[in-house]
């Protein structure tokens, strides 16, 4: 099961891939307002990449509840039984 560090590292890689830039500081409080171009399409790419990377499926309520990056990381941790 992935650790919090593993999850953060994976999210950093996913963000770098989705936004094509490597300077986004991954932190729990990060929101769409902080990253130019983070709209619903990018959000979709991010969650699809997370599902693929961690082999899980988010529920609709979870998808609607990802307001901050921390929400997404927490859902991954919870679903993978990570520390």
């Amino acid at each position, binding site marked *: 099961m992935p650790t919090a560090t593993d999850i953060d590292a994976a999210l950093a890689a996913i963000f770098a891939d989705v936004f094509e830039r490597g300077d986004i500081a991954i932190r729990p409080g990060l929101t769409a307002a902080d990253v130019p171009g983070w709209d619903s399409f990018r*959000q*979709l790419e991010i969650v699809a990449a997370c599902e693929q990377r961690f082999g899980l499926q988010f529920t609709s309520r979870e998808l*609607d509840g990802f307001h901050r990056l921390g929400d997404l990381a927490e859902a991954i941790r919870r679903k993978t039984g990570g520390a």
Partner: protein
Amino acid sequence: MRWLESRRTFLGERLVPLERRRQLQQAFAAHHAGRYDEAATLWDAVRARWPDTPIAWCGSAANRRELGRLHEARAIIADARRRFPADLVTITEAIRIHDAFGDAEAALQLSAAMVRLDPSCATWRLGHFDRLLAADRTEDAAAALEASPRDGGWQLRAALLALRRGDRPRVRALLDAMGAGRADAIAEAAAGLQLRHPAESLVLFDYCLEVEPDRASHLRGVVGGHLGLGAHDDAATVLDRALERHPDDPGLLKARAKLAIATERFADALADLHRLLAATPSDRELAELAAHARLAAATAQAERDEAAPPQPSAAPMVRQEIGHVANDAARELLLGYESLGQDCEFGLLQRRYGAEPLGLFRWNFCETARLADALSDGLDGVGAAAQSVLRLWDHQEYYLEDLRYGFTVHAWQNKGTIAADVLFPKMCTRVALLRRKLLEDLASGRKILVHKTFATGIDDVRALARSLRAHGPNILLWVRSMEHEASPEAPGRGTVTEIEPGLLTAHLSSFGNRVGAPWQIRYDEWLAICAAAAALVRDAPPVSALLGNAGQPRLDVGHGAPDHQAPVVDQHGGAVEVE
């Protein structure tokens, strides 16, 4: 006892074929009536009980093909081919499945196999010739024709071969020699050539017109040939002449819509298409043309918006569309809704108020009737690569099209920014994820579904509401434009009316997307409607909490048509006046 046993055996031998025939007839009847889901069960039952019957396998495969479940069809027919390698019906169905996959080479190999199995059959030989010619293997086609018996369509094939070789005098001589009644067969061949060889198609349709000068189908063919060649002026000339003779011919009106799309006159195209769709709402080509016309119009619109310099005094709604408004109550309200199309207007409304939910139909175009069908089918196959195709609109923006239901989903990426083979699987993954999410939302009924329509009859909307209720306790808000419906019973903008349990309707004064003009979304009218609908079904906050910076709006919420005027919501910021 031995007598009794032999009697039973005798009856069994007689009854088994009868029972098999009865079940086969039931399966065929369901299939031919278009009841494919029912037919699937019947075909599978026959196949399971009598696995040595080739037609049962072919029926199952054809059924899956009709249902768009092509991979299943291919698996079934592959099994059948192993069991019955020399069965011609099985091979024929296998060819159709290869055609459905676009695998021309595999289909060609099988048609060659059919010729080897029955070399004396002219039908197989000429069919093989047709495939070779379609594959541009002209010399192989010539050899196949040479080996064919000279009857039943040989002369027409010889003319097609001469046409491919550019030997016009021989074409004419062969066609002339076909005798009376030849125009139908020639026109059929011409229609088959129209997509890939429009110049050849045009030669044949021109010939047909010489034989039958006024026939509408030939005139349609000539117009189609010119359109295929990009000769828009020629197409327009013939079309004008044709419509003088056949002013109400649906095929000519469809051709006029195609010409209008090709020349970027989208409003003209949509006017024809809406009229035709009203008469034949189940015509898939019309629905697809309308979808393409709207998507093209919207794309052209977006380009114009982007290119146009800001004109705050002249176009306040453009500024509103581009801007964002901080209004937490509106944002929360709009997050309680899920867009079911028909287009992106509701998605833009949500974006304006900072609501960015993930939704399958938020950036999508869909026709009401086909959406209802798709939902009734559980969105079967939506997002599957086999059922999807990535297309370029106007050589610029990519979009994903669902081949079964005709949905078109914006990719928001232009040619040159990403390779199509990279984007396609990404789009399929996105759409599949959104499909899963929507089905989950529908099962819970936790969101109000909103669907705007341009010119859709209530029957289609009722069917949509029914298909939604089959998934869960869902509420559909059907939003119409008073511009598109001059109906005397239209209750007025802003009024939410319950048509039946689970189906609400409301009118905007106009929709936001206008061909040839900037987006003019009636944000406040939308908000008022959404708030009213939420209040009606969810005990949501009053509308004043959303709009309220300039007085108390009077919003009519109720069942049936009210007997008083609805409010007018000022487009510039929420002030309200009553007409």
